[in-house]
């Protein structure tokens, strides 16, 4: 029921996004026909390409065409490749998801472990070291870290390939680089909320039951700390999809982010519009999943739902 209600409330959001995406892309400076025709083209040649691309149609009918493309992918084709945009996206999406989900998963695991270590021994050497690394992880721009890693692991040590996506080994470096951001965020988050809940009464109750300290931390304290973390993970995942624009360019991974960059520089409107719309759908889905997870982790939110 809750899922259905949330889904139906997402529809207006998506409709607004579709309108915004369409209008904003239309406002991008530069005429796709002129960019395709090149700087030496004459006005008549540009006009003929414009006509071919359907850019002379009134705004409303082009928007209608854009909406139609969502249900009938064969009418939504790229200006450059003439293939349906959905085919272009489907081809690139797996790579983007592998890197984002892999990076998030590894980051969450590493970050949580680091957070637990910090919370259990606050002020220790491990805590200090992790705090420094965390700060570095949050502050370092991904593209810079990526280039440094390519230089060290690929050029200097020769362990991993520098760029591309043809073998699983190609994904190791980008996933690890991507993982730094969520790892850093999570270690801070988990450490803070664990330290906060460590002094709570219910943990004393658990200890009084005779549970080991590890069990107390992992099954009682951590579960409560994760509630905030889940929401952050959702936001992080969304951020990663957006960040794929940078990572995929640095590591030469053919993902949706790179497709989007190429499309923007060549004014390939349909690809830009549908790619952004797809990202918007992902954001809505992620938010939904985050809410569901929070409800599962925190029974209080469920009660509130029932009351409301």
């Amino acid at each position, binding site marked *: 029921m809750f899922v259905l209600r949330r889904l139906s409330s997402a529809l207006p959001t998506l409709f607004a996004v579709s309108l915004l995406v369409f209008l904003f892309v239309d406002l991008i400076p*530069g005429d796709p026909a*002129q960019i395709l025709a090149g700087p030496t083209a*004459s006005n008549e040649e540009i006009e003929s390409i414009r006509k071919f691309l359907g850019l002379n149609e009134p705004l409303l009918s082009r928007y209608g065409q854009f909406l139609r493309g969502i249900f009938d992918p064969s009418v939504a084709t790229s200006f450059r490749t003439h293939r349906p945009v959905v085919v272009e996206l489907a081809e690139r999406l797996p790579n983007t998801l592998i890197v984002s989900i892999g990076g998030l998963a590894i980051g969450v695991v590493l970050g949580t472990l680091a957070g637990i270590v910090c919370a259990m021994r606050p002020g220790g050497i491990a805590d200090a070291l992790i705090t420094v690394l965390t700060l570095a992880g949050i502050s370092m721009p991904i593209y810079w870290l990526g280039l440094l890693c390519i230089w060290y692991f690929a*050029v200097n040590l020769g362990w991993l390939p520098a760029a591309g996506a043809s073998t699983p080994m190609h994904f190791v470096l980008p996933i690890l680089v991507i993982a730094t951001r969520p790892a850093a965020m999570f270690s801070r988050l988990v450490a803070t909320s664990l330290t906060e809940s460590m002094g709570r009464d219910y943990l004393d109750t658990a200890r009084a039951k005779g549970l080991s300290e590890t069990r107390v931390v992992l099954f009682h304290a951590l579960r409560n700390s994760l509630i905030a973390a889940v929401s952050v993970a959702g936001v992080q995942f969304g951020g990663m999809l957006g960040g794929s624009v940078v990572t995929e360019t640095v590591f030469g991974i*053919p993902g949706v982010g790179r497709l989007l960059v190429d499309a923007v520089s060549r004014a390939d409107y349909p690809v830009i519009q549908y790619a952004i719309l797809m990202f918007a759908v992902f954001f809505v889905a992620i938010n939904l999943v985050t809410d569901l997870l929070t409800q599962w982790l925190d029974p209080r939110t469920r009660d509130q739902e029932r009351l409301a």
Partner: protein
Amino acid sequence: MRNLRQTCCNAALLVGLSALAGQAQAQPAGVLRVAVGADPATFDPAFNDLPVGNAVDLAVLEGLFRLDPQNNVEKSLASESSFSPDGKIFTVKIKSGKKFSNGDPLNAEAVAASFNRMLDEKTGSIYRGLYASLGTIKAVGEDTVEFHLSEPNGHILMLLASTAASIVNVKSVKEMGAEYGRKPVGSGPYKVDRYVGGEGFKLVPNPTYAGDYPATLKSIDFIVVPEDGSRMALLETGAADIVERVPPESMAAINALKDAKVVNPPSMFSINMEMVLRGPLADAKVRKALNMAVDRDGIAKGILGGLGTPSVGMVGPGTQDELRKTFPPIAFDPDGAKKLLAEAGYKPGQLSLSFTCPTGRYIKDVQVCQALAGSFENIGIKATPLVVDRGTWSKVIGMEPTARTDNMGMVGRATAGMDYTLYRLFFTGVGANRTGYANPRVDALLKEGRAATDPAKQKQIYGEVQEIVWNDQPFLFLWYQTQAIGVANRVQGFAVQPNETLVFDKVTLK
């Protein structure tokens, strides 16, 4: 007796072995790995506008004519060609027995179909306008194609030799739709075997190829890596044999490698500030002063890291060298420039100019614009560089001169042929003439030159046009780009055309 038999045996063995060796040499061998910076998106010659796509089309498709590594026209599918006496019909005889890689015959009908497809409005080709002068194309019998030109055109060979005029298998285009852009069916020495969007693609020998440039490599593997640093890393780690577009700052590092070097072939890309010939820039003295104010050598060495040569003519090297004329470089003379400005009636600080520059379209474009602003300030001009994104830039430089609010725009020109370049840029009122240049003498010459089929006459006509343009200075002439490609030492026989097309005709690996 036994000895004799043994000798015979040995001899036979030797002959056999050497025969084998001979065969092994002719067989394609080795895998060439090429890292390129731009994702080609499509190999369909009707839509491709990237050098990477040109390189693939040159290897996978064949045209009636083709360009050699110096941009000289040579025959490809054509065996002979001639103009009708009135210059209105151009007849090409094609080599017989040619086949597309899928076995379809490549005859006169297929050639005509390929051209007519490009010229069909419904195809939406970005080259339809450029090739419109070909008129209608008819197949006569099995091996003769007639171009019924819409106007006499003495430069048709230049048009036909471009990869944009490669012959596509129209039947396959119909069957495959947009997929044809990824796996074009042609008659060239290679064919596309695998294409992963944005990641790379692989060329393998075309077994049905019959021609002068049989495949020498077992495969050519392309990988697309847009980030310069990452692409260079591929050459440094030995994961690529050829890397496109070495940035100036990486040249020394690549040259220091044991197994690779940077090659610097010339490029026909001619980068200039194209002036809007209105207001102050309508005055030839001001234009001359601007041209004298710029230290081209300093820009080429200091900013472009050597990847540029100061201009000595409007068109770049490789633009029909037989017709090209060069002039002494314009001297860097700020004092002379100041004097000229004073003669034109401008006191220091009285003249202000703005100019539009793209970001990341040409090597170091933004830095050059800042340097130019400095040069203009130096002779007492208030200069405002307008550095904009590519979309805005393409819009500004595509505007009618009367609609422009700036005074100049940085544009690079690299176009097929003298006629095409000069006619489009300098004929009065032509759609692509964005400076507003108008010179009746030039108009007359360009008209005459277009119809002229005699090379000697063309040379004389275009020599004069180039001289007039060079002296009129409708542009602030800057530099010709120099290419920089990282090539591993094991690569032999690699060449690059001045239009930045990689040529794999004779590449072998050590």
